[in-house]
């Protein structure tokens, strides 16, 4: 039991994650010593996770507008117009720290939180994706974390009933003590029926909906804003427990209530629970909020104001209702078996007032808690430049065929089937392209439109050159959407970085953001939502800078799309884009040569756009149905993936001029695609490309049951596939 008049000591302030100067600022602001409830509230609002205090000034540099953007960052999720009166609502969010401590529940509630963000705005979720990074495979914790996180994501999404259609899984020792679990949700709503967090009207009822409040997750957001050490696992009690069944009911009840016209404003209780949701609704609407905690549905007896305000119990919502519609709203929630309680009202005082058991437990200025929280311009240093590695300087330690076989069966490049088969990716019957391709495709309702969805970033590029790495993350998402025939529309970003209090890590953050902003501007691909996750480090060891990009694109006719699989024998294989054999920071250099060196490939955004627009036009005009972008592992890995997906081999005859073969095959030059087309159509396409200055060259021909690289032993597709499919299941069974 925490009494409200407990003495506020410097230790207590420190335990709440507030720096001495932040506490001083708070005391000045309210003109007195805070109560413990007030200290809890401010610690929840001013932590990094909720306040974006270290990142905010840099986020301002990102482009967030376009004619099709209905709502940019700052709401529960971003909203874009996809025509026909429909809007696509989406966001990605991290649940890194909870997932490291308790992988199943941490990942499950990550999915739950992001689904809630999307349906809070009135959208029915139609797809989920994720971006996962684990420590090195040999680390003793890794298998347990993989197993728990994947089961948690599946456990929540499958039960809720949303298809998990795409994602990314990778391993690196830099995530040994701090894995990344980023979840993305995509929903659909009528573009004139979108709901926001901004409260309006004085004296309107504030309603609590959903599951009851317990003592779980107290201070979760504060935990998410601190670095880890060996004692972090003792924080397990601060991880919340998810209930996807309650969330499914909450979804149906909320959408039904929204249709009734009773909802003025709505905010889900995510990080910092009741505190954050109530403050945001009031602060955004320039209104005060008064809550009577005696009315809050509680799961446990004797909960104090402090505990109720900081609980992160899941599957809860806060709404401002139209006066007079309380009865109707209550009936809908009771039909779905969910709690409904009027717990407060909006006021004109701009104060956040908390009453409990006849006492005022907190009385704080609402704007300063919310949108006027402290902002820092943290010192940073730019990452040192790395030398460009000349292709000729890298000696091939094995044959190209051996290298390819090694890569297709490596932890990062192997098939992730073991993962995505645990996710229901087919529910709703709209999944046109399943996991394993460039971008997932889901049909919009009964068509004809479709959405192309992807999550991407190459963390090793970001570390070697944050600016180019930031550009590349956006460009790869744009390219993956383009490769299936989609028009890239907007992104959500999940910015995972180490401690902003270290100038080198802050420099990575600043550099990546500049790169992201530049690429978004050049590619007309604005940021509409996102999440910043800092302090991703353990015992002073930071993660690789990992700004995960979730991209959304539109197909006007979902039946006109391309996939990676070779579909016919005898197709010409054409490489689109310029190749100079860039091996710096490549997968080949790392996993075949054992060297993590050099500058990453630069991204020429003009070429990127030109080449991508060319590819998209080929798909949309039905000239091409087989496309794969070249990324990790270059041309060779892309060819292998196309062959394995289609069970059709290929023979590559083109030899590079003035370039070692391994640099040609495995170099990671950007803005490139492989396509496979009928021989008769190939000449036209090569001509079209040359007419607009797009580099395009024929590499070889599809057919047979083997992949044959120039001057190399044939590798049977069967053998490639066996290596590709084996690693992850074997590893998880303790065999690899």
């Amino acid at each position, binding site marked *: 039991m925490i009494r409200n008049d407990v003495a506020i000591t410097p230790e207590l302030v420190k335990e709440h994650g507030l720096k001495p100067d932040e506490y001083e600022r708070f005391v000045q602001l309210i003109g007195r010593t805070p109560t413990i409830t007030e200290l809890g509230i401010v610690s929840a609002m001013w932590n990094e996770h909720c306040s974006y205090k270290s990142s905010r000034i840099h986020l301002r540099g990102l482009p967030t507008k376009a004619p099709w953007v209905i709502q940019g960052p700052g709401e529960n999720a971003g909203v874009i117009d996809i025509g026909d009166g429909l809007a696509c609502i989406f966001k990605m969010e991290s649940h890194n720290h909870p997932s490291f401590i308790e992988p199943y529940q941490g990942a499950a509630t990550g999915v739950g939180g992001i689904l809630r963000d999307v349906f809070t705005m009135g959208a029915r979720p139609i797809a989920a994706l994720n971006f996962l990074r684990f420590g090195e495979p040999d680390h003793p914790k890794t298998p347990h974390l993989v197993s728990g996180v994947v089961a948690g994501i599946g456990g929540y999404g499958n039960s809720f009933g949303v298809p998990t259609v795409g994602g990314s899984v990778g391993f690196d020792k830099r995530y040994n003590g701090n894995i990344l679990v980023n979840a993305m949700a995509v929903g659909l709503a009528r573009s004139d029926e979108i709901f926001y967090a901004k409260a309006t009207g004085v004296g309107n009822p504030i309603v609590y909906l959903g599951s009851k409040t317990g003592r779980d997750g107290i201070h979760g957001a504060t935990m998410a804003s601190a670095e880890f050490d060996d004692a972090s696992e003792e924080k397990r009690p601060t991880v919340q427990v998810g209930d996807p*069944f*309650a969330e499914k*009911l909450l979804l149906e009840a909320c959408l039904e209530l929204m249709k009734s016209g009773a909802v003025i404003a709505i905010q889900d209780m995510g990080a910092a629970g009741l505190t954050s949701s109530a403050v945001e609704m009031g602060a955004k609407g320039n209104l005060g909020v008064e809550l009577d905690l005696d009315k809050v549905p509680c799961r446990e007896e004797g909960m104090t104001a402090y505990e109720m305000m900081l609980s992160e119990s899941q599957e809860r919502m806060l709404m401002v209702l139209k006066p007079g519609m309380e009865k109707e709203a209550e009936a809908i929630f009771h039909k779905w078996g969910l709690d409904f309680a009027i717990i407060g009202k909006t006021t004109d005082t701009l104060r956040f007032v908390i009453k409990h058991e006849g006492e005022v437990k907190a009385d704080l200025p609402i704007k300063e808690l919310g949108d006027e929280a402290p902002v820092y311009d943290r010192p940073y240093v730019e990452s040192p430049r790395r030398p460009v590695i000349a292709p000729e300087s890298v000696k091939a330690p094995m044959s190209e065929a051996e290298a390819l076989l090694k890569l297709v069966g490596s932890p990062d490049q192997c098939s992730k089937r073991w993962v995505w088969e645990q996710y229901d990716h*087919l529910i*709703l*019957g709209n*999944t046109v392209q399943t996991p394993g391709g460039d971008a997932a495709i889901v*049909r919009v309702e009964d068509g004809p439109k479709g959405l192309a969805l992807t999550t991407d970033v190459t963390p090793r590029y970001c570390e070697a050159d944050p600016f180019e790495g930031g550009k590349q993350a956006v460009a790869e998402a744009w390219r993956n959407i383009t490769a299936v025939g989609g028009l890239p529309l907007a992104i959500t970003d999940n910015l995972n970085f180490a401690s902003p209090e270290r100038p080198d890590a802050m420099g990575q953050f600043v550099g990546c953001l500049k790169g992201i902003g530049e690429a978004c501007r050049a590619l007309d691909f604005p940021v509409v939502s996102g999440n910043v996750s800092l302090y991703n480090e353990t015992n002073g060891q930071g993660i690789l800078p990992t700004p995960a990009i979730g991209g959304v694109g539109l197909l006007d006719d*979902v039946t006109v799309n391309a996939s990676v699989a070779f579909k016919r024998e005898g197709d010409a294989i054409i490489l689109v884009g310029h190749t100079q054999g860039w091996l710096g920071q490549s997968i080949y250099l790392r996993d075949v040569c054992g060297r993590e060196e050099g500058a990453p490939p630069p991204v020429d955004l003009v070429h990127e756009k030109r080449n991508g627009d060319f590819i998209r036009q080929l798909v949309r005009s039905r000239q091409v149905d087989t496309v794969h972008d070249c990324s990790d592992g270059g041309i060779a890995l892309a060819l292998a993936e196309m062959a394995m997906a289609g069970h059709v081999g290929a023979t590559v005859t083109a030899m590079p001029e003035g370039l070692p073969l391994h640099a040609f095959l495995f170099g990671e030059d950007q803005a490139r695609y492989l396509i496979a087309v009928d021989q008769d159509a190939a000449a036209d396409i090569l001509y079209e490309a040359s007419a607009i200055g797009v580099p395009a060259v024929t590499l070889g021909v599809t057919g047979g049951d083997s992949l044959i690289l120039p001057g190399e032993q044939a590798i049977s597709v069967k053998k490639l596939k066996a290596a590709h499919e084996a690693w992850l299941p074997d590893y998880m069974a303790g065999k690899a």
Partner: protein
Amino acid sequence: MKSAVVVFPGSNREGDVVRALKLAGSDVQKVWHAETDLPSGTDLVVLPGGFSYGDYLRCGAIAGRAAVMDAVRAHAARGGLVLGICNGFQILCESGLLPGILMRNANLKFICHRQFLRVERNDTAFTKAYAKGQAIDVCVAHGEGNYTADSETLKRLEGEGLVAFRYADAHGHVTQDANRNGSMNSIAGIYSDRLNVLGMMPHPENLIEDLVGGTDGRGLFESLVSSAARAA
């Protein structure tokens, strides 16, 4: 044909099966679990996939005792058609309409993948549009699809030809590799004694269009619509 799709709290594939039924030409109405009557003139009752009541307690156990299930049992007793898919199959087992139970998958994990089934007989209201022994391409998505029954029950199911579908390869061969959830006798679906109730784990409703993978699932819904037309 008139179909009634029962919606429990936690059902999540009701929309998918509604789409498949409509495509086959059925009228479809959704029925809330708290109802005590089915819409008049109902030919077919469908218990859809999902996680009714969160699959808490035991899959299908709570839904098996829902108010609407008395009406479903009465409908089945009259010889009316009942189809339970995935969670619906689990509910049919829990409600006493079908024997046996669905246990955790052999690998203890949820699995979602494309799956071939062998059609064991094509003289029922559910399978007329297929050939006997045909391999049909559908999908599975479940964590507890491992069909288990005592040996007496298995013997009776096999002896009386009440096995509807078995997990098979693309050629219709029933193999151990194709039986990924570990079901006894590779059983993917079973009929009631009178062949008017079918419970199956796989999802034919998700394979009804070439755009999303194929049309092998259509036959089941088309069979039902044509059977109802003949009965009327």
